[in-house]
């Protein structure tokens, strides 16, 4: 760094660091740089502009970006730039020790003697203590002798209330074997009693809340039960675990199936209501044809069935609505209304809205091809309108066809299930359901469109 500063003729900041130079030559050999005479900044000139024109040495600003400044990067650690500080093998005492034993360790000669820093980590749990009279007065127990209680308190102190370790080191030769819960119960019991009769509370078991003493209450029975359950859980055999896994997997399967069924029902319901609203507005010249739509849905469930029948009736009785309502209530594909301002191509109106999926678009195109209709006809006003209506109907027809197929499948599945459950019996499906399904299936596309309301049907109403 010093070399670069020299080359660039930049004055070095006088550092307190020890450099090789300062060690060898001392301080007298410092170079003095002649600073150019300062030029005053003209009035009104921006500081930045002035800085570009004139710098201290009247040099031009560098053509290439240079990266020698300290501002852009972090300074590397300067090793060996300071004089080494001395270490000494010094004695120390540890205030955490009670015996004032002297050990030695390395410390800096410059560091002043202070308390051994690690002594602050010497934390101990405070365990309640009791005198003999106190024991006899309050703590007597039929189950525990005083010697045993003393042993427990001693172990608690030694192992800082780690009851697992206390249980491990329990003197089984002198006292009978006790469970961890027994030990805990006795200990917390003693804590509770002593905190009531004694004034000094010990930090870990008694907390003062609003000046009121709260004693930790240990529920030994609950703990015993918990541990018993835990043990049972851990000691299951592989078969038991496998069985449980199997049952869980089964449960998941059943739930997935249930969800699937619910989803299908919802889909169908949506479709029916949509078809319903569509058929409501149609010219119902042909009653038989119209009735096809609800009977499709009749496969679904009784509730829906009833509702639909009602709707069917109402739709038959209701007079034909105005065409505007139809366009508003259109359910196949909702083509966006004409845009606000500006010039636009009419063919834009024929674009399918982005909500229509890829598969549906493909299916519609396929149907159009079957009917030998151009996929992109010349967009006159009338063609535009009819074309859109046709495609919308096609979409609805496709949906209904799919729904029908799935209903048919379910019907057959139910029939098989019924026959499997009642061997020997056969479920006769009412021909009204079956026939319609086969009828619809076999019907050419054009007729289906007629059912739901094709442009021609709409046109008739006008």
């Amino acid at each position, binding site marked *: 760094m010093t070399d670069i500063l020299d080359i660039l003729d930049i004055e070095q900041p006088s550092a307190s660091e020890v450099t090789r130079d300062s060690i060898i030559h001392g301080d007298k050999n410092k170079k003095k740089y002649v600073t150019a005479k300062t030029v005053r900044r003209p009035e009104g000139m921006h500081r930045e502009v002035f800085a570009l024109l004139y710098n201290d040495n009247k040099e031009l600003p560098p053509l290439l970006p240079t990266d020698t400044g300290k501002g852009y990067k972090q300074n590397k650690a300067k090793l060996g730039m300071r004089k080494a500080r001395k270490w000494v093998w010094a004695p120390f005492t*540890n205030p955490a*020790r009670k*015996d004032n034993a002297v*050990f030695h*360790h390395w410390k800096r000669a410059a560091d002043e003697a202070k308390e051994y820093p690690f002594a602050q980590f010497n934390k101990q749990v405070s365990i309640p203590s009791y005198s003999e009279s106190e024991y006899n007065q309050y703590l007597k127990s039929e189950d525990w002798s005083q010697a045993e209680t003393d042993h427990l308190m001693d172990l608690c102190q030694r192992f800082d209330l780690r009851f697992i*370790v206390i249980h*491990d080191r329990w003197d089984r030769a002198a006292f009978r074997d006790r469970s961890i819960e027994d030990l805990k119960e006795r200990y917390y019991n003693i804590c509770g009693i002593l905190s009531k009769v004694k004034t000094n509370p010990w930090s870990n078991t008694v907390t003062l809340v609003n000046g009121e003493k709260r004693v930790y209450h240990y529920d030994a029975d609950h703990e015993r039960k918990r541990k018993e359950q835990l043990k049972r859980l851990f000691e299951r055999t592989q078969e038991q675990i496998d069985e449980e896994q199997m049952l869980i997997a089964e449960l998941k399967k059943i739930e997935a199936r249930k969800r699937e069924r619910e989803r299908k029902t919802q889909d169908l319901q949506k479709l029916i209501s949509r078809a319903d609203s569509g058929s409501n507005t149609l010219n119902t010249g042909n009653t038989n044809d119209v009735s096809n739509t609800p009977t499709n849905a009749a496969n679904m469930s009784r509730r829906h069935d009833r509702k639909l029948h009602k709707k069917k009736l109402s739709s038959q009785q209701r007079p034909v609505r105005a065409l505007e309502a139809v366009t508003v209530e259109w359910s196949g594909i909702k083509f966006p209304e004409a845009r606000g301002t500006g010039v636009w191509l009419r063919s834009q109106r024929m674009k399918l809205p982005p909500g229509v999926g890829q598969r549906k678009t493909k299916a519609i195109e396929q149907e159009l091809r079957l009917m030998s209709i151009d996929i992109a006809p010349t967009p006159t006003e009338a063609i535009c309108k009819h074309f859109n209506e046709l495609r919308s109907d096609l979409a609805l027809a496709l949906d209904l066809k799919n729904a029908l197929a799935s209903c048919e499948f379910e019907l057959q599945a139910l029939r098989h299930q019924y026959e499997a459950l009642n061997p020997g019996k056969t479920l006769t499906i009412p021909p009204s359901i079956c026939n319609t399904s086969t009828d619809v299936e076999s019907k050419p596309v054009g007729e289906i469109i007629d059912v739901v309301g094709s442009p021609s049907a709409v046109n008739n109403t006008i």
Partner: protein
Amino acid sequence: MSGPNGMLYGGDEIGALVFDPGHHSLRVGYAQEDTPKADIPAVIGVGPATHIPDAEQKVPDGNVTQSGTKTGNELRHYIDVTELHVPRPNMEVQTYMKDGQIENWDLFEKMLDYCYTKVIRSPSEHHPALFTEAVWTTRPAREKLAELLFEKYQAPAFFLVKNAVLAAFANGKSTALVVDAGASQTSAVPVVDGYALVSAAVRSPVGGDHLAAQAKNMLNSMHIQMLPVYSIQSKEVIRERERARYTLKTLPAGLTPSWQQYMLKRQYEDFCHCIAQVSETAYDERTAAVVPGVHYEFPGGYHQDFGPERFKLTECLFEQSLGAPHLVCAAASACDADARPALWGSVVACGGVAALGGWLERLAKELASRAPSSHRLKTHAAPSPAERRFAAWIGGSILASIGSFQQMWISSQEYDEGGKGQLERKCP
């Protein structure tokens, strides 16, 4: 001590020594170092001192008859490989260890003398000493050790820690289920919050010695002779599986069987070290045959490839009721139900046998099939074989150089006041 407040890294080194006596070797070194200074075989050669005259015998005032009787009765102790592996007449090899504990205190004193004078080369009264011990060490043995250190060696401070606890510390755990696969036995000890659960510890006599014995049996059945390496003068280069051609050395008469056996055992250990490999699953002839063999040349010059035998040999370490996986399960099930999840979550493997290739993988696999599925099972071990062997020593090295540990030592003052009875309280 370093850092601005003297507490950087939480370490404070006070020049303590760490001793880790084991059946195979004794590890000794300074705390805060990452490997022991010395790894000394745990056996001592005891023989008459006639071989090399002592310098003291040349003292001019020595009476001829007196010095004669002296050399006749005086025994010399040969410690560490450079002394021990020399063929000497009438030198018996003896060990001071038995069942994981120090038994022969006179011999152990000789070993400590050697450590202080030849390894540490510093007077014992300058260094606090931290010793490791097996979990089942009896109270008299512990007290005897404290007595020895304070009264004979004038140690400024002393501490005893269970080796399972230290192995857990070496792996950065305070709660762990430590599997120590040592030379004489394999043990599984649960450690909770830095305390070994003594009543839940289990062990089996299957260890490195057993493996070496199995290797001996295997070679016998294959009719391969393991000649003692010290008896070979020269050998010729021969083709694989060809009959060995060698000339024997003339050895001094009166070599003791104990020494010969010890030397042969070292060779079988070396053989195991080079050849033995643990298969990932239970031994299967066909899968073992696929693995390429390893070449081994015996001291006589005979050499051959060992293929499936490598895997077959180590199967004895995973026997149904004696192997490490069974011990781990037994130890875990002996613990309180509340401690079990934490123990299964950190199974720590250490010891010389654990350094065997594939041993840890096999243990992990067997445990995975035996452990209750409700627990998360994780098996830890140091990556390098040396760190696995020295796990307990490394843990001791870490512990003795921690600043907050420095209050735990039993100082010589405390010993003078309280006697050795306080050992049980101070070193749990």
